């Protein structure tokens, strides 16, 4: 072990601490306002500028609060386990700062517990800005992003179809995949509209299921029965909570998390043998390929052309069949991660990528809001 827990002693200090302007009975301020006031006052107390904050913690909604304050973090932690959360956040912040992962953490809280002002819609702008447009969940958010990409770069339904069809081919090699019937380009184009420009076959499945993984030190890992898959690098970020506040709908926070993960891992794009990108929608894959730098802005259509990402192509992508054809319970990032582990262990049978040594997984959450990128290897 490079680290002993005692190495964390005296490494990290609290430099600012403050409350909202008023406490007690405050019927003229919402929970969000109290929350942000406390953040502002703590930063004033410390003399810290907003741009110095690279880690955000609160109990339940870092997406919304970081969006409100205009913070794009390198570490996000919404651990919500009740009133103890903020003490637990401190421990997480200590470990992260002492290791050099981040430098400055902001831990915040705000509640209108007595007056119940804006107490229901917690965090960010809340429902008053987003409830009245008729947004029917993720397809309505992601389709707007796809439309912008189409208008800006000339991306077409043929480009999206390449991804849907290639992903189905992988699913056909996976006995556990839900959708294993062949899918033609015609099937894609003939599938019904959900939220134009999305066809049904642009959208992921809705399924039931669970997943889990276990992590320990590499030293300990050698005592257990499975081949250890080592983590080489990781990165995380988010740019907004609601799609309406996304800085630019044609790239995601993977622009931040990807390079950080690759830098930590000491690998480049050409070193990756297998890649799993969260495919809530076909567009999610395209925009993530660009955001991670596998191709330039507006170029994903060219990149995936000719079934390049299908079995037998030179860029194995979403080899389990993805959220589009394998399974999608709601938060698919777990399954994308597990597939990289299985590929690196060599457990994938018909869909095994030969001699896979290094794999990358990128999860995308919220409304193209948050990303996590991890790079793993079996070379230990």
């Amino acid at each position, binding site marked *: 072990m490079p680290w002993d827990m005692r190495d964390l002693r005296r490494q990290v200090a609290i430099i600012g601490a403050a409350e909202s302007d008023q406490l007690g009975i405050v019927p003229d301020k919402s929970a969000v306002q109290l929350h942000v006031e406390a953040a502002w006052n703590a930063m004033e107390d410390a003399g810290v500028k907003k741009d110095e904050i690279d880690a955000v913690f609160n109990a339940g909604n870092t997406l919304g609060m970081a969006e409100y304050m205009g913070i794009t973090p390198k570490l996000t932690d919404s651990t919500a386990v009740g009133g103890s959360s903020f003490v637990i956040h401190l421990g997480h912040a200590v470990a992260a700062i002492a290791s050099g992962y981040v430098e400055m953490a902001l831990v915040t809280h705000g509640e209108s517990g007595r007056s119940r002002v804006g107490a229901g819609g917690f965090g960010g702008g809340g429902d008053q800005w987003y409830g009245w447009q008729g947004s*029917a969940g993720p397809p309505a958010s992601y389709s*707007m992003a796809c439309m912008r990409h189409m208008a800006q770069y000339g991306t077409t339904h043929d480009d999206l179809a390449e991804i849907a069809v290639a992903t189905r081919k992988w699913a056909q090699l996976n006995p556990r995949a839900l959708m294993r019937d062949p899918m033609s380009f015609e099937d894609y184009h003939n599938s019904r509209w959900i939220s134009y420009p999305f066809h049904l076959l642009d959208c992921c499945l809705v399924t039931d299921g669970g997943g889990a993984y276990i992590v320990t030190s590499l030293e300990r890992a050698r005592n257990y029965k499975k081949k250890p898959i080592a983590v080489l690098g990781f990165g995380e970020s988010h740019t907004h909570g609601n799609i309406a506040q996304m800085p630019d709908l044609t790239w995601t926070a993977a622009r931040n998390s990807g390079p950080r993960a690759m830098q930590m891992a000491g690998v480049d794009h050409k070193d990756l043998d297998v890649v799993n990108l969260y495919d809530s929608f076909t567009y999610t894959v395209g925009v993530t390929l660009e955001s991670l730098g596998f191709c330039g802005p507006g170029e994903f259509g060219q990149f995936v052309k000719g079934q390049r990402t299908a079995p037998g192509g030179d860029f194995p992508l979403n080899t389990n069949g993805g959220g589009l054809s394998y399974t999608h319970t709601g938060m698919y990032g777990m399954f994308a991660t597990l597939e990289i582990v299985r590929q690196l262990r060599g457990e994938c049978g018909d869909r095994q990528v030969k001699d896979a040594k290094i794999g990358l997984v990128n999860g995308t959450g919220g409304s193209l809001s948050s990303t996590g990128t991890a790079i793993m290897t079996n070379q230990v």
Partner: protein
Amino acid sequence: MPQVRRMGVPQPTPETKPFWDAAKRGELWIKRCKDCGQHHYYPRVVCPNCFSRNVEWVKSSGKGSLYTYNINVRTAPGWENNPNYIIALVTLEEGPRIMSNLVNIPFDQDPVKMAQHIQVGMPVEVTFEELSEEISVPRFKPAGS
């Protein structure tokens, strides 16, 4: 007559009440930072650019351009009587982006045909729809329509 939808009627909070009061009068209000000069929407008590608390209400021109949109063939609960309604992101002249709906576009069962009347980047302007006695919400229509 526009459909009155009970679902999604906004509930103002003390710091956002001026926005909704203005909307009731047919005006679109946003916030401007007196320190860095940047406008923002949705309205906040701090500037999301420079984090100053020195922010003020200003009236938006209500004019902007269509940043992106979609056409919702599958409807949200409460929207069944408005088939193929359009959700839009509009970039206001002052800079901020607002999520709303694009209205005054000829209906067609086929969203591809509706899309022929819409261009990303087209000029749009605000119009208001009454959802309840207290609340009107901003929608956008093609400029001059």
